[in-house]
């Protein structure tokens, strides 16, 4: 087994780290506090190719592999978890399905703009009554001539307000439940498509999470992504990739928590010595490091499987489940190590703590990941 990264992977990681450290970190706290979308940072990051990391060059992407994608998202999340998820969502569940399932015409029309970051992508599956159970969505798409007419409300859509292109899941045949779901490429600004309320979240606050409302929204049927009734298939492909991105994001948050603790425990003195001299603190940091390393290996393995185009036996879910829970544990310990300061907004671990909680929930809760993993073993 080769545990060394290639030159490309190392260079891409360096590029991401350098950018995130200089352009994301200085503003991350303020944007978190104001729940402000990083408009400028996303514009800059797009120019540097971060919006089409694994999309081949012929479609305007960078042509890098999924392992590189993981390294990049981890670095971004180390400095700003919100920007990391904007990038991850765009790459994995917006651009990627268009690349995977889109027709040449759709790729020409949408993929170039997505991969180059000219347009921001989002993915709309979740509804108020259909989160963990996607087959029960109520948004409908009714065929009328050469168009489909969409009706329904999507909730908790990452980048919902700021995105230009949304992959929307709607039921074209409710009697078929899951097999009646179709994916549509929907452009922002068309009639009948409005953005509802912006959620005020506990964490990942600089990414905008919105309600999307479709009221007799007419979408050309040529915008069906993949086959009619193949929406769930598209969603599962996209979400599998999405889980790898979220796992990478969790790694970044966990690392941030750990690195802050290493720094703080060397500075903070109690009883006349640095608190890093106390075994209680040392053990917490040792556990964080070990778990982060394990989570990273799991995430990289999932990325490697995707790169080799081998079927997952739930490694993607394992990565998301484990990495997000590692992030939560690391952030919890980090706040504990920081004591009173850890509860203050001036310290990064406070943000890590809130961000980690969100990561455990979105892109499939821990419970859903366990369900998927169990199914793969018990089916």
């Amino acid at each position: 087994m080769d545990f060394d990264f290639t030159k490309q992977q190392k260079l891409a990681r360096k590029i991401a780290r350098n950018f995130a450290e200089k352009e994301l970190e200085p503003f991350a706290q303020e944007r978190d506090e104001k729940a402000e979308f990083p408009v400028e940072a996303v514009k800059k990051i797009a120019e540097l190719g971060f919006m089409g990391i694994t999309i081949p060059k012929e479609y305007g992407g960078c042509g890098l592999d999924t392992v590189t994608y993981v390294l990049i998202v981890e670095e971004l999340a180390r400095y700003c978890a919100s920007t990391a998820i904007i990038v991850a969502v765009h790459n994995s569940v917006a651009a990627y399905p268009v690349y995977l399932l889109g027709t040449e015409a759709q790729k020409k029309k949408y993929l170039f703009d997505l991969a180059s970051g000219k347009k921001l992508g989002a993915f709309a599956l979740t509804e108020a009554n259909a989160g963990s159970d996607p087959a029960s969505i109520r948004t409908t798409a009714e065929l009328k001539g050469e168009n489909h007419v969409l009706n329904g409300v999507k909730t908790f859509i990452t980048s919902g307000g700021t995105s230009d292109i949304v992959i929307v899941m709607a039921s074209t045949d409710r009697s078929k439940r899951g097999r009646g779901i179709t994916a549509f490429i929907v452009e922002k600004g068309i009639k009948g498509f409005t953005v509802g309320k912006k959620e005020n979240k506990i964490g990942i606050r600089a990414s905008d999470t919105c309600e999307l409302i479709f009221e007799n929204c007419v979408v050309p049927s040529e915008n069906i992504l993949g086959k009619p009734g193949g929406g769930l298939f598209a969603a599962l492909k996209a979400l599998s990739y999405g889980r790898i991105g979220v796992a990478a994001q969790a790694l970044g948050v966990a690392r941030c928590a750990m690195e802050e603790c290493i720094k703080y425990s060397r500075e903070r003195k109690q009883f006349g010595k640095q608190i890093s001299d106390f075994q209680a603190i040392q053990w917490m940091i040792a556990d964080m490091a070990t778990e982060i390393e394990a989570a990273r290996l799991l995430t990289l393995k999932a990325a490697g499987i995707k790169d080799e185009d081998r079927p997952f036996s739930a490694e993607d879910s394992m990565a998301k489940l484990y990495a997000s829970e590692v992030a939560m544990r690391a952030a919890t310990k980090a706040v504990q190590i920081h004591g009173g300061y850890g509860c203050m907004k001036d310290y990064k671990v406070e943000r890590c703590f809130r961000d980690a909680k969100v990561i455990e929930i979105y892109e499939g809760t821990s419970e859903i990941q366990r369900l998927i993993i169990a199914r793969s073993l018990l089916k």
Partner: protein
Amino acid sequence: MKGLKIIVAVKQVPGTDEVRTDPKTNSLIRQGVPGILNPEDRNAVEAALCLKEKHGAAVTALTMGPPEAGDVLEEVFAMGVDKGILLTDMAFAGSDTLITAFILSRAIIKSGRFDLILCGRHAIDGETAQVGPQIAGFMDLPQVTYAEEIVLEKGFITVRRDLEDCQEWVKVKLPAVVTVTSRINRPRYPSLYNVQTACDGSLLTTWGAEDLKVPASMLGLDASPTVIKKIFEPDHKKRGEIIPGDEKEMAASLIEKLKGVNVI
């Protein structure tokens, strides 16, 4: 007129100014300190790329160091540099600024025609600011140091120099050597789009002492006039007095103490 050709000399330096020395061996602790592109060399690369965008130019980056120093070339490729030359050879090790400049100038001559050589003002490790002028010295070229703006027109450049008490505009005929300060520009970030090409080896040339046709006796530590006798950490003054009390008391006793030592 043939296209403009620009050479940028860059250096990989330890990535932190929190370097420590090993008191036993009297040497730098480099372990765990990642190498980075010297900050003002990044400005030099940016200056070259700006000239390229404005006037059209081929930009070649040149670096000397251990094989790992090739990393900084990959990074400048990702910024948009066209070609790179890595000078690596055990025989180069320990070269001081004079010998380093000699080796770099040999490589520049070997690489063919050029119009402009750009360097960062100084590297953050040795902080000598000598290699740029010494390259100019070996090649008998005019030099302009402390550049904060470079304007190219018809075989000449006009450079604004940032000096202690003034700014100075000078005009120089090309070819010339220019060293730039961090005030000249804000370097672009390397792009992910270029990562594939940057790393596939297609832009990189590696030369050793033999390629430069220079005998080992003229290279490295033995040929260098200057030798580092020892390195050590500076000792700072002893800890002074912490003034106790609340804000009011602190302010009062500070003023009293300053009066006591006659500074106010």
